């Protein structure tokens, strides 16, 4: 019975990770990925590893989506410039 | 920069220092001399940075 919270959070991690793979648009994928970061941090806390959860929070909740969105933006701009030159 | 703005800036930095040092004392678990010294110096650096940042933002 005490493991119910672990089971619930593991199910959430599985569902979120599957969704992150299934979503195709990179911007929407970044949104799912930031939710996945938070859920993973909760999983590490539930498994009594709060130090790992702390670093996961620091990286996963803001930094990963920021890098992804900046990359998408740069790639789109480059594609637009190329389209204009041709 | 005249004398009045300097005084105002010093007062603002002091207010930041008080708030940040109080925050440090709240967030640590055991309060001893070393923690107080570290907190006071870190709060000083952060107060200077906060004053400078606010000046830059309000001058825009």
């Amino acid at each position, binding site marked *: 019975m005490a493991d*119910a*919270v672990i089971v619930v959070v593991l199910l*959430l991690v599985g569902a979120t990770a599957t969704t992150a793979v299934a979503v195709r648009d990179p911007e929407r994928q970044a949104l799912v990925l930031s939710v996945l970061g*938070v859920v993973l941090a*909760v999983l590490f*806390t539930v498994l009594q590893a*709060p130090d790992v959860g702390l670093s996961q929070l620091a990286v996963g909740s*803001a930094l990963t*989506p920021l890098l992804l*969105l900046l990359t998408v933006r740069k790639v789109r701009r480059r594609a637009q410039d190329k389209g204009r030159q041709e | 920069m005249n004398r009045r703005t300097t005084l105002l800036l010093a007062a603002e930095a002091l207010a930041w220092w008080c708030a940040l040092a109080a925050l440090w004392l709240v967030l640590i678990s055991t309060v001893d001399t070393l923690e107080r010294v570290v907190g006071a110096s870190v709060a000083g650096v952060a107060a200077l940075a906060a004053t400078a940042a606010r000046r830059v933002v309000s001058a825009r």
Partner: protein
Amino acid sequence: MNGWILAATVALGTGLGTALWGVATGPLRRRVVAQNMSTALACPALLLLSQGYARPSYVDLALVLALLGPVGTLVFARLLADDLADDPPRAWGVTWVVAGFGAVVVGAVCAATGPSPEMVKLLVIGALLIGGNVLASRALSGGFPGAGRG
């Protein structure tokens, strides 16, 4: 398994499950709101877990999440500003419900802690959580005109 962990389990299962469903389907404006709600729900759940495991140091996780969750939402609000400008998300009902849940959890954990420096820390976390959440919702709904330059 005590009441705190049970409450955290229910909050995580229903709250984050709903947030996951919201972030996986629907238009973009609903997805960003659901992402904001997921951080605002996970933070009270972490507080409940810290109380349930009787480990006050676990509260640091909730503190970091209360600081960084709104920062992540502001990243989306800034970089998706062009896509969100056409139909800005308006979800003040959800925002205030989640903020109220956070306030209730912080109040309950404070009552269990009793007056001490830890209680002040919990109140700081609650203020950061609710303030950051409301600020992020306002930024998403285009409440800061002129901030989306560049």
